[in-house]
């Protein structure tokens, strides 16, 4: 239970921090491609730093893999929204969207992991 809750809290934290950081760097009217690339770069830096910090408490791969999706794809997504001024109107709303995105990614990775888990090769020897 500790690890399950920890996974979601970590994902939500990384999502919120990515959303707020991208909001600080991207302004409405910015070229969307540049905004998305900038957002992805910011997200990757955040996921690398926080992933390393959180790994001892939550496990290296269980932290880094969802964090990478949140950072890379979330950063692009938030950058796109903010450049179009289609993003959340307040910082609180942006943080909430980031948290929701983070939680959804963690859930998605857990479901994907469940699908992949198990024998790939088993000769029965």
């Amino acid at each position: 239970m500790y690890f399950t809750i920890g996974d979601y809290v970590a994902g939500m934290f990384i999502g919120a921090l990515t959303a707020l950081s991208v909001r600080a760097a991207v302004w409405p009217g910015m070229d969307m491609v540049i905004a998305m690339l900038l957002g992805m770069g910011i997200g990757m830096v955040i996921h690398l730093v926080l992933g390393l910090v959180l790994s001892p408490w939550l496990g290296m791969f269980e932290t880094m893999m969802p964090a990478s999706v949140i950072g890379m794809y979330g950063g692009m997504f938030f950058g796109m929204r903010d450049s179009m001024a289609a993003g959340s109107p307040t910082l609180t709303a942006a943080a909430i969207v980031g948290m929701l995105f983070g939680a959804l990614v963690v859930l998605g990775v857990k479901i994907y992991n469940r699908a992949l888990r198990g024998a790939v090769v088993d000769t029965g020897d």
Partner: protein
Amino acid sequence: MDTETQRKWDEASRTFDWLTFADDHRLGPHKRRLFSKIRGATLMVAAGTGNDFKFFPPGQRIIAIDISPKMLERAAKKATAYPGTIELREMDVGALPFPDASFDTIVTVCTFCSVPKPVAGLRELYRVLKPDGQLLMFEHVRSKIGPFGILLDLMTPLSRRLGPDLNRDTVGNVQKAGFRLRREENVYLDIVKIIEAVKG
């Protein structure tokens, strides 16, 4: 002896237990399940600080090697607590001083992400394994899932400085060394795996 690798893992030994605390808890049951298959004369390669000794079934006679004397210093207490026999020896997997066909079981845990010449190391394991012996591995490998694989490639130059590579094809390396896969199991995504192999 590969002194560069030895120095890296001597350094890593200071924080190793702390960094692997969560992994031990999350992955421990899978390791215990794998190690329940241990039989006969057993070699553990890269014992580290001995964190995995607690997952061994009791009553075994195991030789546990590591390239890092600092790691082995930390492992000594855990080896004493094991309800069986664990003999610790400083050794490089690339040059094992054992005769051919010495072991019934060889165990590795997150080892071949770090061995500089993995296929050569695995060939050495092939040599010291008995013809009917088994290789039991708990390893992390490069993901074949696009974004995860790219991420592991990007992180490897950094992780290599502190410890392991994150993008090794250990399943392929096991086969290149001459082993035949008996079982391959995904433990976390397609990154953390149980690999069981026998002589081909």
